[in-house]
């Protein structure tokens, strides 16, 4: 309380000089970092066009970006993570501590936090949240991933509790910063999975006013909100009085509406329209999804991909810069590791993943492959054909297909529905999967590759890698863990278990008069600091 006073005073001073600030800012509106206050004479209401129906608003159940853009405004998390440094800071929990073996975490809750239905945040509510997530099972896969091995939550008193796991769980601390483990009111977690999708009550800076599927979501600012994390720019209530999220499925209608002023912010600006909104009248918000970039995730137990030389040849034959130019955002860069550049723990492996057509050729010829008449390598009469199963990013795969064709490798695309994709994952019936895995921790690689992972996509048999993957998940010391994570990235990239193709960038746009839209560490949006500064 005492140390918040100067900040508070500064905020009042800031709003007093708001008019002045707007004038002063007019000259530097191109910059990403601004510190102007909301304009006093303008309504603090924005219209934010979403690209699809959120389907389910409950942040614990859904992992779809669109839903989380809404959910993030409604629910707070125990902890927060600085997207730039990866540092974890307090939020709803003022203090926390992990046991040395990472099997238990003790939290102390911040005082005075309430949910928008008026009930207080207590240890009991948090315990009910975690218990409910485990009970949701498959309906809350991502949240359950963070709670792997959950044994229970022991309540010491109203504001102190200990979460225990049957095995070391390194991802829980980071998971506690995400919306997947966002804390909802006792009444919400007691409701059925279906009801929670339609309405959730959290302790966030905004409150759900209405949700009409396929039409719009309406939020209003929460009066008396006073527990933003220190990563936010201000304290107290959100600047905005309301946010309206119409659901606009057609991209050209979203961009047209941003131009005509019907929408203040739009989700998912198509990459082709990026330069059109690169002027001073608009702002673009771009961030690579953290986790594993768009990649070919390989099944090394069958076909030519069982052969390491073939895998490495494929990796060397891909010109990722060109793929990025052809299919990526102007704001994006080619992947230089098997984690994206926005993931904490990312290591630059640009040399390992460099485009090298000669090396690709050497690898294949050294391995006994010879060019057939049709320009495709073959060995023992079998052509070098690999099939990739995917349900999105067909353009990326087509670019890769083109490049591999030139290197004498035949990449066949099998575009399926998302259900069939996961059907293939369940049965293990594929050569390679084409997809990205969004997670905010390098543990994403364990999720993807470990033989013990429930969401295992890459099928590899590598004892050395497996041991490293398990060890990093049990190492609390940040430096020691980073060392392990470096080794893991090196091995996965060098032995080409995962062959990255593109860092997918989330690209949103707003008009210049709306400021303070920020990404959280999971590349979802915070609208708490957002304000309208000019028409």
């Amino acid at each position: 309380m005492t140390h918040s006073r100067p900040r508070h005073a500064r905020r009042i001073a800031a709003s007093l000089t708001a008019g002045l600030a707007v004038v002063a800012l007019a000259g530097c509106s191109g910059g990403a970092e601004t510190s102007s206050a909301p304009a006093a004479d303008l309504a603090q209401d924005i219209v934010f066009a979403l690209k699809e129906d959120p389907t389910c608003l409950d942040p614990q159940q859904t992992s779809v970006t669109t839903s989380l853009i809404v959910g993030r405004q409604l629910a707070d998390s125990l902890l927060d993570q600085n997207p730039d440094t990866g540092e974890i800071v307090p939020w709803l929990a003022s203090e926390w501590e992990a046991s040395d073996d990472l099997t238990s975490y003790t939290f102390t809750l911040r005082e005075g936090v309430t949910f928008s239905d008026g009930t207080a945040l207590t240890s009991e509510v948090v315990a009910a949240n975690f218990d409910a997530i485990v009970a949701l099972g498959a309906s809350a896969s991502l949240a359950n991933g963070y709670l792997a091995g959950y044994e229970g939550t022991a309540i010491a008193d109203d504001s102190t509790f200990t979460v225990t796991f049957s095995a070391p769980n390194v991802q829980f601390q980071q998971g506690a910063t995400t919306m997947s483990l966002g804390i909802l009111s006792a009444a919400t977690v007691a409701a059925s999975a279906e009801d929670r999708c339609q309405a959730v009550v959290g302790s966030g800076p905004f409150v759900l006013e209405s949700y009409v599927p396929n039409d719009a979501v309406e939020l209003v600012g929460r009066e008396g909100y006073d527990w933003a994390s220190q990563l936010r720019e201000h304290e107290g209530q959100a600047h905005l009085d309301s946010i309206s999220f119409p659901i606009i499925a057609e991209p050209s209608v979203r961009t047209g509406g941003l131009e005509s002023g019907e929408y203040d912010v739009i989700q998912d600006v198509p990459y082709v329209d990026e330069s059109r909104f690169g002027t001073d009248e608009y702002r673009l918000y771009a961030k690579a999804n953290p986790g594993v970039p768009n990649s070919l995730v390989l099944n090394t137990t069958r076909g030519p991909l069982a052969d390491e030389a073939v895998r490495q040849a494929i990796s060397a034959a891909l010109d990722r810069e060109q793929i990025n130019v052809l299919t990526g955002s102007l704001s994006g860069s080619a992947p230089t590791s098997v984690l994206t550049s926005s993931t904490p723990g990312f290591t630059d492996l640009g040399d390992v993943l460099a485009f090298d057509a000669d090396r690709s050729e050497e690898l294949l010829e050294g391995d006994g492959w010879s060019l057939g008449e049709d320009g495709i390598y073959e060995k023992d009469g079998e052509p070098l054909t690999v099939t990739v199963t995917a349900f999105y990013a067909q353009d990326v795969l087509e670019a890769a297909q083109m490049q591999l064709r030139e290197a004498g490798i035949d990449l066949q695309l099998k575009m399926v529905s998302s259900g069939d994709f996961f059907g293939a994952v369940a049965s293990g019936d594929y050569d390679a999967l084409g997809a990205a895995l969004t997670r905010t921790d390098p543990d994403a690689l364990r999720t993807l590759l470990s033989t013990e992972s429930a969401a295992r996509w890459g099928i590899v048999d590598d004892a050395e890698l497996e041991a490293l993957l398990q060890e990093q998940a049990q190492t609390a010391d940040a430096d020691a863990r980073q060392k392990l994570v470096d080794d893991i990235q090196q091995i996965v990239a060098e032995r080409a278990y995962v062959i990255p193709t593109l860092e997918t960038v989330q690209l949103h746009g707003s008009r210049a008069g709306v400021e303070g839209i920020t990404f959280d560490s999971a590349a979802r949006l915070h609208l708490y600091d957002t304000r309208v500064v000019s028409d």
Partner: protein
Amino acid sequence: MASPEQRAAPAHGEGGARAIARFLVPKILQCLFVIWATYSVAFLLMHALPGDPVLAALSLRGGDATSTDPAELDALRARYGLDGPVWQQYLTGFLGLFAGDFGISIATGQPVIDMIGRAFPHTAAVAVFALVTGFVVALAFTVWAYIARPAWLRDVVAQIPPLGIAIPAFLTGLVLISVFSFGLGWFPASGTDGFASIVLPGITLALPTGAIFFQVFSAAVFDAGASPFVTTANAKGLAQRTVVTRHVLRNALLPSITIIGLQIGYLAGGTAVVETVFSRDGIGRLTVDAVLARDVNVVMGVVVVVATVYAVVTLIVDGLYGVIDPRTRTRLRTGKAATR
């Protein structure tokens, strides 16, 4: 003391009722058959598709975190009535329809009947607007084309309405949005809020609808125009307006009623595109979403509702035939002829 006339009257009435029943009952049975057949075919198609509907619906919400744990999938399958043998699912689903139970959407977890109930009025509003507008515009063009002189002008006028079919609704919609929403700001570009939100999608659909109406009207009207009774009417010196309204348009009425049934079938499909472009909640968009998510329960629900609307409209149209067409009317009155 009953007079012969009095005795004859009820007998005639009874005969009439029986005739009407004889006329209507087969049509009602036909209507029920259409609904049953549609349900069955849709059921077979949805179940013949490869892949797992529960996994598909789950992946809509779970994204890259979708669980593929067989035990968890089985639990969800039981919950959404997708477990057990196929014939059992078929029977349970079909019998449920009579109790108004359309099951639960796998993708959203909401009762299917609620989702359809929410979306249906939005679609119906646009469809009715498009039907009425299309009808009126087509009528106006028909009359214009009929009375236009000289012949070349008549040909030009007759060539305009078919454009309504040639231009895809998707394009029309986008053009209307950029001009009337983003440019002039007269109508909203999206949403289902009030009459203003119906206008642009309604016009988008009215174009192809009107074009089809025009084809049918103009064929009938020009046929009638060339027939002897119009020549007679003209020869009698009746005013052009009287000839058009009394003789020519009346003859165009019958085929246009027939076409309404077909038009509603067309609108059911056309709304999917329009509802996507105009970001409207409605049956079309619901269907597209459900098909993409393999949400079998919603697809079956929509199929049954659309089939019912179509069948009922056809029934009404057939019934109207009985009232409007003098030949059918006569058959109904005499009773005997109907059994032919």
